[in-house]
């Protein structure tokens, strides 16, 4: 393999891939990036056993002789970064070492054979869907915070994506709160499909998605979810298991609905939350006509009392919540006003945006 490439054309994909590759790898080949040079294109692949990122390069590139090899990802990326801007980089494989030359600089890196690299082959795909990157990103950002972490209910340690004939939905829950966001999109899917994207894969995918209208192609496979965006192809493993029926979790028939300004509700909760119990983080909400009182106390007998005006007419109600869960929801929402629907002190609360019903959030109450 021998090729010449501009520094920038190599550095950008290399840094994206080095972000996927973990520093601490159990297998040496996983800290390497796979180079596949074809006569007029170059493909770089990095993996950490859970997610794989492939970058295609075909500009600023001249391949003298094609070939396949794996090269240490971080070292090569550090070398490229340290080279001057706009310089040409030559990569040449000699024996089992690769020579990197640029101007007067010359580096020799060790390699491992390409067939030792566990790259994912194309799955039997079952379904594909194209949508705007920003839409997918919003969907994931609206829900991913509620994913469980290292829960024994392993199917909760990820994000569930569901495709119906006219929607794409993301749901995440850790058993205490649930986030669901739906995007109206004609998918052409005749059946309802579900998959669970693991936590790590979800977070990596969000990082890759641009906040722009450029499109992303999602491919649902048996064992993988693949996302093609621009020059990158992202592949994640899936969690094998059945996601709980989220429809049963969403409370219906709450009769005490109030509307509050999102920012001031958040600020009030944050203030009161300072004096809540460090671990339990419970706050008590006192809902009465046009006023929401927020109370917190901790084992040191310290107390916080706060209140804010809300839009509410009806019976008064006292209910406890984990303040962290409420603040997470208020951070994920974007509109000015939020609506919260409650029924009694033992039933979960439903929070959504007043103007935009795409995302709904369920928070379980606490007994205080």
């Amino acid at each position, binding site marked *: 393999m021998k090729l010449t490439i501009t520094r920038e054309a190599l550095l950008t994909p290399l840094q994206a891939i080095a972000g996927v590759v973990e520093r601490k790898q159990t297998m*040496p080949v996983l800290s390497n990036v796979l180079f596949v040079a074809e006569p007029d294109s170059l493909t770089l692949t990095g993996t950490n056993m859970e997610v794989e990122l492939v970058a295609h390069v075909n500009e600023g590139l001249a391949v003298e002789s094609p070939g396949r090899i794996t090269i240490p990802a971080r070292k090569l990326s550090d070398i490229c970064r340290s080279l001057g801007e706009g310089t040409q980089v030559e990569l040449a494989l000699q024996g089992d070492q690769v020579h990197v030359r640029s101007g007067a600089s010359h580096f020799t890196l060790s390699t491992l054979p390409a*067939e030792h690299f566990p790259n994912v082959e194309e799955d039997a795909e079952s379904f594909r869907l194209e949508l705007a990157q920003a839409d997918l990103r919003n969907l994931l950002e609206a829900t991913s915070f509620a994913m469980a972490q290292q829960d024994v209910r392993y199917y909760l340690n990820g994000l569930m994506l569901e495709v119906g004939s006219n929607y794409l939905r993301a749901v995440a829950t850790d058993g205490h709160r649930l986030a669901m966001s739906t995007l109206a999109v004609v998918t052409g899917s005749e059946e309802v499909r579900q998959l669970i994207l693991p936590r790590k894969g979800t977070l990596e995918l969000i990082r890759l998605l641009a906040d722009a209208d450029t499109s992303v192609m999602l491919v649902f496979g*048996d064992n993988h979810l693949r996302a093609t965006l621009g020059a990158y192809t992202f592949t994640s493993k899936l969690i094998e298991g059945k996601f709980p029926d989220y429809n049963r979790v969403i409370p219906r028939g709450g009769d005490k609905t109030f509307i509050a300004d999102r920012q001031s509700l958040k600020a009030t909760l944050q203030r009161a939350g300072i004096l809540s119990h460090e671990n339990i983080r419970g706050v008590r909400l006192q809902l009465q006509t046009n006023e929401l009182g927020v109370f917190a106390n901790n084992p040191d007998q310290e107390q916080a009392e706060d209140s804010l005006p809300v839009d509410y007419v009806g019976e008064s109600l006292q209910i406890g919540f984990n303040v962290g869960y409420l603040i997470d929801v208020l951070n994920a929402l974007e509109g000015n006003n939020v609506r919260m629907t409650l029924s009694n002190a033992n039933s979960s609360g439903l929070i959504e945006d007043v103007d935009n019903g795409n995302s709904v959030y369920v928070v379980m109450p606490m007994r205080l």
Partner: protein
Amino acid sequence: MPATENPILPWHESSWLRVVEWSRLDRLPHALLLSAVRGSGKRDFAERLATWLLCSNPGDVACGECKHCRLRAAGAHPDIQVCTPADSRVIKVDQVRALTEFLVQSPQVAARKIAIVDTADQLNMNAANALLKTLEEPATDVNLLLLQHAGQRILPTLRSRCQVLSLPTPPIDTARDWLLSRLEGEEGRDPELLDHALALAGGAPLAAQALIHDGHLAAAEQCLSALRQYLKGQVVLSDAVAPFLKEGLASTLVFMGRWAQDLARLGAGGHGEDHQAHDMLSYLAQHNHPAEVHHLYARIQEARAGMTYNLNPELEIGQLLMAWRKLMPRKQARAS
């Protein structure tokens, strides 16, 4: 690392064919407990089985050509994880949790995922419990291979969730032939030496090979002579402990286990396997009731089970030596 390029160990052949047959009939259990004597090649069997299960066109053995076989040969297959004690003698709960996470995700490149636990008797209590759930209800594309040193205790709830496959220890002739072929062109092919190594290793050829390669045989002799001198009262306990301590508690228990077994055999009118210890052991056998000998053997087994915890090797070896000393006839003991 996977040893696919080497032929299967001859004494595993029939077990191998059995597993292959199970798989053909789609009756391969999701969890196999491979039980065999320490050093008889369990891990080799498990690694080989893993490669075979991952291979995309397996015959009676893995093809060695496909992507999976190549990745296995490079030690880079992403769909197999091996759980083995890291920097301690036990497998900890965090290792099992990581394994569980791996097992609930879809495979990366292969059609299934494989976990090897080497060995199941080294799982600490929390780790063993953490494995139970996975063992009971793994995903359909999971194969769990648990290894167990024969005679070592494992949690009954673990055992009951696995199908047990006992791998045989080879007959002495097979073991000797195998050792000879392995030691081709090396020093130490002296048949007496081989037999001695095999005797010390309880007939387990890989363990015997390790004994020969690492120069443990000479050390075993030193240990034997230290024991002999201590029994006769010629050296003090701390001096007798020294050569054992140098070999480590694990080897000490292997050596002592062998001698105690020989002692029991001699007491029952049989023959010992370790000829070098013969005189000492037959003397002890003449002067002790078999129950005493079994008591000593139980004591050694207990120490082996205790090894999973943090025993102080020096104290433990000292206590075992004192247990041996108790077998000496009283007059002799007083005379020293």
